[in-house]
């Protein structure tokens, strides 16, 4: 069993990263900046899920992480496509 | 690729037959399978080069992890300290990689290494434009990049 202190510390670090990333998302200033932040948040969520799987001992949670890792970047692709087709970057 | 597939199948067969579903046993099965394929290789053209590729792949992974850690430390230092040490810029890197897959692999692995980010490929696919964070020593950076490309191509070709 992993020391709960470690687990909690990891949770703390990861939730802190999510919060910080959201600040970038909110601040922008450009659309790509926000998208990068969103990407990072998605990655951090994957990490949180991993930790949660260890925390609870339920491996099934990893399936969510797999799906997230496999598909979350689609949003970024969508945003990039938006920019490529002439969508405003400062919106 | 076929070789790898065969190797995985062999590993699986080993785990099932041995009735022990642990990770270690699977790795053991993979190693056994690799040995079998390495022996088989001269007689089976379809496996050509597989025996060489696996150690190269393992070596590459280790190399890549080293690069990763090295670059991460560099970036981390700059991010965490108030003054900026970085000298970012976009450079052009001529490619030895030719096929789409090769170019993509090279570009992505370069992207994965902190401090470098693949921006785009020229229309004739011969130059990769890279955004780099630390252009203080461009020469060694280029050497590192070429080294990565070389090792990738070694595995893929």
């Amino acid at each position, binding site marked *: 069993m992993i020391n709960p202190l470690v687990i909690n510390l990891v949770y703390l670090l990861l939730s802190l990263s999510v919060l910080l990333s959201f600040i970038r998302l909110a601040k922008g200033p450009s659309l790509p900046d926000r998208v990068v932040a969103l990407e990072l948040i998605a990655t951090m969520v994957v990490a949180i899920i991993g930790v949660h799987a260890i925390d609870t001992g339920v491996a*099934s949670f990893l*399936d*969510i992480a*797999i*799906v997230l890792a*496999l*598909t979350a970047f*689609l949003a970024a*692709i*969508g945003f990039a*496509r938006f*920019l*490529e*087709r*002439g969508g*405003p970057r400062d919106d | 690729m076929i070789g790898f597939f065969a190797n995985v199948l062999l590993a699986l067969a080993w785990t099932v037959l041995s009735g022990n579903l642990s990770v270690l046993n699977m790795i053991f099965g993979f190693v056994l399978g690799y040995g079998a394929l390495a022996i088989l290789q001269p007689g089976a053209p379809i496996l050509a080069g597989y025996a060489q590729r696996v150690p190269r792949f393992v070596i590459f992974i280790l190399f890549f992890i080293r690069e990763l850690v090295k670059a991460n430390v560099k970036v981390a230092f700059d991010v965490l300290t108030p003054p900026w040490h970085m000298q970012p810029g976009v450079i052009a890197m001529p490619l030895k990689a030719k096929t*789409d*897959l090769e*170019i*993509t692999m090279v*570009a*992505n692995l370069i992207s994965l290494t902190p401090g470098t980010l*693949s921006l*785009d*490929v020229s*229309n004739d*696919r011969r130059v990769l434009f890279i955004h780099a964070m630390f252009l203080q020593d461009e020469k060694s950076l280029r050497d590192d990049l070429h080294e990565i490309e070389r090792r990738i191509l070694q595995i893929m070709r």
Partner: protein
Amino acid sequence: MTEPDKKIMKDNTVILHTAALALLPLQLLFSVFLLLRGHDEPGGGFIAGLVGAGAVVLYLFAHGVDATRRIIRFDPRDLLGIGLLLGTVSAFPALLRGEPFLTAQWWIFDLAGTEIKLSTVLVFDIGVYFAVVGTILTVVVSLTEAEE
């Protein structure tokens, strides 16, 4: 806002194209995996369908509508139709046994030591899968076509 037909920057390149091509089979395979084991572990037709559709959407973004239509071969509406039909039809076999609509029918047999479980539930889930893929593709393909 710029005219949609006027290019504003360099087209997407080899990297995304190749990545999409490489990811497509991976994602589709994974989606089928999610579909088949959904009854026992997280997954199921809906989740699998979303993953599968995501794969095609990625391909669509990288390669465009025409190329996507070529690889999926079916019209998205046909996929949708097949899905809904499978879902609906799976309600009926129960009637043959004099059981209420939607009563699950199981056919379990042994195949070389592995237990194979076929059921109307699986048919239903496959229907879900196709319907979801069909839905998302219909929407996204129509939208991108409308854009072009």
